[in-house]
């Protein structure tokens, strides 16, 4: 029926770019896993002070630290590949000139820096916010 060439399921192990492509796609597992963790923290927050304190204690466990370390590496790989791909997706022109790729990616990295500083400021300052 089909004239499609059979590709072995190990195709992604045969070349480095293929392997990095699969790693990039699988960073999404770390993304979802960490969002599930945030959801768990908020669930504990809704349950009351004891449940929340238990969740924060769990967050300081060696298992949590190890998972955070692996997750952070994967999520950073996501962030870098995502921003580096932005010039391919977002094409702008000023007059006839195409806005250079380095500016579009650079704007995203600058935005990342600002968002990170803002989140750190919100989460790490003391006293009641707002």
């Amino acid at each position, binding site marked *: 029926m089909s004239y499609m060439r059979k590709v072995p*399921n190990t195709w*992604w192990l045969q070349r480095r770019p293929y392997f990095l492509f*699969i790693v990039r*796609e*699988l960073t*999404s*597992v770390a*993304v*979802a896993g*960490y*969002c*599930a*963790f*945030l*959801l768990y*923290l*908020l*669930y504990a*927050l*809704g349950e009351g*002070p004891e449940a*929340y*304190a238990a969740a*924060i204690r769990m*967050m*300081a466990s060696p298992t*949590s*630290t190890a*998972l*955070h*370390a692996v*997750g*952070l590496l994967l*999520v*950073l790989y*996501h*962030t870098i590949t*995502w*921003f580096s791909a932005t010039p391919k997706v977002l094409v702008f022109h000023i007059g006839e000139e195409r806005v250079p790729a380095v500016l579009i990616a650079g704007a*995203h990295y600058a*935005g*990342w820096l600002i*968002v*990170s500083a803002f*989140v*750190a400021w919100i*989460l*790490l*300052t*003391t*006293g*009641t*916010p*707002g």
Partner: protein
Amino acid sequence: MAKSNEPIAWSLFSAGGMIAALFLPISMVITGFVVAQGFAPADALSYDRVHAAVSGSFVVKLVLFAVIALPFFHWAHRFKFTLVDLGLRKISLLLAIACYGSAVAATAITAVVLWRI
């Protein structure tokens, strides 16, 4: 051309990917290391402070909702296509239902959890 849900899936994938890229690294550094290792001020993520910030504010809940729910759709899109690429093409419809279904379920859970706080 056949009708397709692809634009919706791709928009959610794209929004979730952008939110994950911007917000998750700093959040992971803070929850996994700064607070966990005791480098943060004592009451930074205390129950009283976080509860007061979240429970009283619809805007804070909305931001948390977007930051948590949208990346699940980013995952659903990538994970489904990764499994297809790794050889599960024959059950691609089943994978789509399982992955996007999980993302929809996670979104509903996020809404309920935030609502209760």
